[in-house]
């Protein structure tokens, strides 16, 4: 993929990295992984799942009916695993570079030292 991966997509793929999850579990997991910063709406989640499925990044693992409610579990495809690994590597390079540059900054002078 030559384009940047959007943050919600990255969070969804991260949430699926350790195994299949159903819709609500995925919403909760994204919320947890993002430290409460991203709470997906159900409409957004299914629009993203539909797109990712068409792109071959995820697939339906199974469906269960629990007390009348359908629970559809989705999982990463091998392509999806590769894509996530690629994105993680890309982000790691950026983070390492950001850390390196921050460490080059001169130490902040002590209170009153700038006078």
């Amino acid at each position, binding site marked *: 993929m*030559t*384009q*940047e991966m*959007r943050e919600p997509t990255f969070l969804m793929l991260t949430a699926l990295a350790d195994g299949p999850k*159903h*819709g*609500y579990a995925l*919403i909760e997991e994204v919320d947890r992984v993002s430290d409460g910063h991203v709470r997906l*709406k*159900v*409409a*957004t*989640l*299914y*629009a993203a*799942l*539909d*797109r990712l499925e*068409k792109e071959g990044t995820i*697939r*339906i*693992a*199974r*469906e269960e*009916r*629990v*007390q*009348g*409610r*359908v*629970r*559809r579990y989705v999982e990463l495809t091998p392509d999806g695993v590769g894509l996530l690994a690629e994105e993680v590597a890309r982000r790691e390079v950026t983070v390492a570079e950001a850390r390196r540059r921050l460490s080059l900054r001169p130490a902040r002078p002590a209170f009153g030292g700038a006078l």
Partner: protein
Amino acid sequence: MTTIDDTPWRRALRAYPLSWRERHGEAMLGTLLDEAEAQGREEPSRGERIALMRSGLVVRVLGWMPPVTREALATASAATGLALAVMFGVFSGFSTRMDGRLPAEGQNPDLQASPGLIVAGLWAIAFVLILCGAARAARIALAATATAGVAVFIYAQLDPLAGPRAITTVTLTVVALLGLLAPVRARVAAAVTAAVTTGILVAFHLFFEVGVGEPSEAIWLRVLTEEFTGFLAAALWGLALLAAVARARAVARRIGGAAVIWTIVWLIRFMMWDLATATLGVAAVIAVASVGVAIFRAGARRGREVHPREGAA
């Protein structure tokens, strides 16, 4: 797990087309009910209803178009729109307004700013936001561009002397609306397309000796003629076809997106000067597009029937 009456959610899901509900409806309903139960709700929240309605509408209007196609079109629109806005801003943003009702000595010989500069300026802001990676802010700027385009169009109808010509505002508005099809994230592709398009248009403006300060119709009468826009659209279709044959799918999609936008610009050029011919042309394009969409949808439906979804109930 408690029992919640799912009727209000089923009603809200009717915003989606039947084909979507067949594929995702029951799974979505299950998730909506799981969330409602966890939050202690017995009916959809206001935000949930709005999100479902909005998402359903998007699927109904644009669902037949694959996201990659939508994104390619939005990218091409953003780049082409910027090039057209720059052309307008540079060559016709400031011009002398000759009022035919006044004698020669009553004319104001000074260059005056056109209200169309507001639209061109918003286009530039939208494009800068795209290049900065602020896709959401860029969409807001594009929506503002389209709104300003409509406002300037109305203003120019009330005071034709203030300009610009309707074709300029109509084109910039239509292209801005197409830019809203999807968030533009392919920044490099957008920048390259904008640079190439602007370069070609500047070269032709110089070749046809369109000077700075000319009225807005000069662009359309001397550069963006029916022949030129038609040739450009045809050339882009040819290039897209070649790229597709060479299996360079991403390139074919990008060039194809630009071809669609220039076909639309050509149609607008056609329509604004010759309404009768253009109406026939638009009818023919709609007929061909409808047949294409019908074939595409029939193929997709057949595909679903032949390959039933794994695990579907």
